[in-house]
């Protein structure tokens, strides 16, 4: 049975230079894969025994280029191994191939990533919003979207207005001051 080291080596050889193994962090293996090779690498990993997609998430490194990062948390029940696969997405491209044909759970995860970050998934069978309502014009987890929200109005469906944030930001005090940890507006000097 293949262990993670041999999988590392075989994928390094197979996708020469397109798969970079990141430094081990807390015993967790992370691969950085080039966007063009993302689907072949993930398909090969599925065949290698990574049968479970634990999570699919996205990161917005606002101000950096490429701006977005997509993270796949894989697990192999046969090998009892975790593997994190990352790829970067530039804002101009803003799309990655869907993996919902490999792991069916990716269907809703990708809908969420699309809803919150605006990243499109090519070939997705049903790329609708999942949390916000259909027709909402923004992607609220982007770093340049204000926490208080923006004005929208779809008659008879939904509307939204900015929330009042006077005295904010609303923060939680460190754990040693557990007496007043309730998130609330505090003067910035007291934080």
């Amino acid at each position, binding site marked *: 049975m293949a262990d993670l080291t041999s999988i590392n080596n075989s994928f390094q050889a197979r996708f020469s230079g397109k798969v970079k193994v990141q430094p081990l962090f807390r015993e967790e293996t992370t691969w950085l894969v080039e966007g063009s090779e993302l689907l072949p690498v993930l398909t090969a990993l599925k065949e290698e025994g990574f049968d479970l997609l634990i999570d699919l998430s996205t990161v917005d490194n606002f101000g950096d280029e490429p701006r977005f990062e997509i993270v796949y948390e894989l697990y192999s029940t046969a090998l009892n191994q975790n593997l994190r696969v990352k790829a970067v997405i530039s804002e101009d491209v803003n799309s990655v191939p869907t993996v919902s044909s490999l792991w069916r759970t990716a269907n809703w995860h990708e809908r969420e990533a699309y809803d919150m970050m605006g990243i499109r998934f090519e070939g997705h069978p049903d790329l609708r919003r999942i949390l916000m*309502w259909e027709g909402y014009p923004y992607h609220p987890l982007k770093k340049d979207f204000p926490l208080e929200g923006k004005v929208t109005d779809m008659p008879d469906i939904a509307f939204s207005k900015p*929330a009042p944030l006077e005295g904010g930001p609303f923060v939680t005090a460190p754990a040693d001051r557990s007496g007043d940890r309730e998130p609330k507006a505090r003067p910035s000097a007291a934080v």
Partner: protein
Amino acid sequence: MSDLSELNYNSKVEGNIVLTTLEASINWMRKNSLWPMPMGLACCAIELMAAASSRFDISRFGAEVMRFSPRQSDLLIVAGTVTYKMALATKRIYDQMPDPKWVIAMGACASTGGMYRSYAVLQGIDNLIPVDVYISGCPPRPEALLEGLMQLQKKIATEKSLSTLKQEEAA
């Protein structure tokens, strides 16, 4: 000489008659048989369920008939965080309730948005529909809901139910 015996003192019914005004009796009937529409949207709904179950027993106040059809209810209990996605659905349910109707905003979220100063949450259900009683707490305990219900009963008892009726007839 006409027969006035029916209007005379009758010892058989003395003590069995209560004199009141029509308005007071209408209000008394309304306040003691509120049929709630449980609009459970978040954790407040758990406390609402607790208030309905045996330990707290909301039926002591005549409000145990939770109807899941707005057409059979006269009290909307908004229990929980009202997101913008749910806001117009809540208003639609309120609109479908027959008059007279009342609204309890249960908990911090339904009253003001609570801790959710966020793009996704309506900052208080009173932005959409009129609220009679606000209940503080996150979530409020069942006792607080019962207290709110009693406050609403006090409010109903002072309403001008009959004169409103006359105004509507005239209009």
